């Protein structure tokens, strides 16, 4: 069953009762929430994802719930619960849906050590992965959204998950988070793409999410081989520049964007070296999205044949 196979009303009823299991790539997320915007958000942004209404195994058990006491009514808030425990400060209730997305990211980055994790967007073409590490504000999600709407396959806008045995990259396929000016930038770049209604006044400013293309969701469990490692940097007014990055420098920049390199030790070192060694490493400065996408398309066209 897919999310689109149930109505928003039925999804809401399930979420407020026993919950649903939303399958995002390799992870099974058991979600409960009595808040209708959570159901509406999942229905709008995850229509092509597998959904299970029965119980069963889940990697993460999460809930979005109202706090006890006055905050249920006065300036109402929402809590994100993991295994029944609140793990974030409460947020204003209108931020319930973004909080779900942030919470699901938190689940992976804090609970998963069977993949090497980097803070990076990952897209793929013909089985070859483009990994784009970057700090918040570097423009990686915006670039990721643009590439996905231009035909690249989405693996993730936030997390590169490296297989510890094969070095391949695995995807989540979840909605792409857009912030502030990038929301209108993507709406203008890809008018046919679905972008959710913006949620204002969050800690990250105004946020919205891009629905992943159905093809990316269908192929989400298909890993991709590392092929390019690009460090994007948005700079207003700057000319587009895609400059080769020395591999040893790329290596340390990548390590600095890892969530669990230290915890995993030698295997993380080896897989990081492999990823860099197998990739063409570049630094990308851009201000014009069209030029950045064209530059990366050109880079990708140099690969002669599909990896799979």
């Amino acid at each position, binding site marked *: 069953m897919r999310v689109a196979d149930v109505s928003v009303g039925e999804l809401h009823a399930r979420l407020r009762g026993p919950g649903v299991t939303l399958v995002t790539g390799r992870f099974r997320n058991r979600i409960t929430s009595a808040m209708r915007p959570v159901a509406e958000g999942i229905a709008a942004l995850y229509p092509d994802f597998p959904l299970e209404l029965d119980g069963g195994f889940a990697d993460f058990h999460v809930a979005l719930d109202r706090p006890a006491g006055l905050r249920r009514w006065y300036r109402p808030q929402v809590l994100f619960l993991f295994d029944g425990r609140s793990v974030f400060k409460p947020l204003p209730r209108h931020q319930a849906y973004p909080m779900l997305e942030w919470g699901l990211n938190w689940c992976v980055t804090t609970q998963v050590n069977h993949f090497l994790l980097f803070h990076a967007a990952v897209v793929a073409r013909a089985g070859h992965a483009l990994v784009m590490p970057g700090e918040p504000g570097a423009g990686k999600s915006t670039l990721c959204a643009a590439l996905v709407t231009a035909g690249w396959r989405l693996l993730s806008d936030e997390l590169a998950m490296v297989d510890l045995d094969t070095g391949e990259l695995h995807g989540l396929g979840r909605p792409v988070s857009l912030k502030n000016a990038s929301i209108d930038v993507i709406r203008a770049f890809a008018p046919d793409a679905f972008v959710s209604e913006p949620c204002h006044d969050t800690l990250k400013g105004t946020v919205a999410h891009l629905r992943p293309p159905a093809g990316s969701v269908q192929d989400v469990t298909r890993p991709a081989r590392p092929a390019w490692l690009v460090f994007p940097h948005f700079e207003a007014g700057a000319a587009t520049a895609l400059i080769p990055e020395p*591999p040893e420098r790329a290596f*340390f920049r990548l*390590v600095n964007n890892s969530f669990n390199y230290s915890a995993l*030790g*030698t295997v993380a*070192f*080896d897989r990081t070296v492999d990823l*860099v*060694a197998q990739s063409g490493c570049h630094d990308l400065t851009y201000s014009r999205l069209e030029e950045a996408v064209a530059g990366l398309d050109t880079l990708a066209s140099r690969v002669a044949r599909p990896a799979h």
Partner: protein
Amino acid sequence: MPDVCSRWLIDPLVTYRRLGEQVVAFHAGSGDTHLLSPVSGAILDVLSSAVDGSGGCSVADLLADEQLVSADASEAGVTDALVALAETEIVRVASEGE
């Protein structure tokens, strides 16, 4: 500082790999990752290829090796590189010189 007759070994907790012209090393004990010079990388290559049970290599052994000869490494350069590698616990002295 150990003298030139000291014999050196790679710490068994160290893994190193070549990346382009450079060498990166990881020490599983400290969790530290290091960027090494080409001479240091050549030293590690020679030490890692030394026969097990040989008790490591001296500076003289290293200087006689083809890799370091082709790297145009001087005795002072090799000694300095060994000391730097020892400070980060990538190599250690197997036995002091007499």
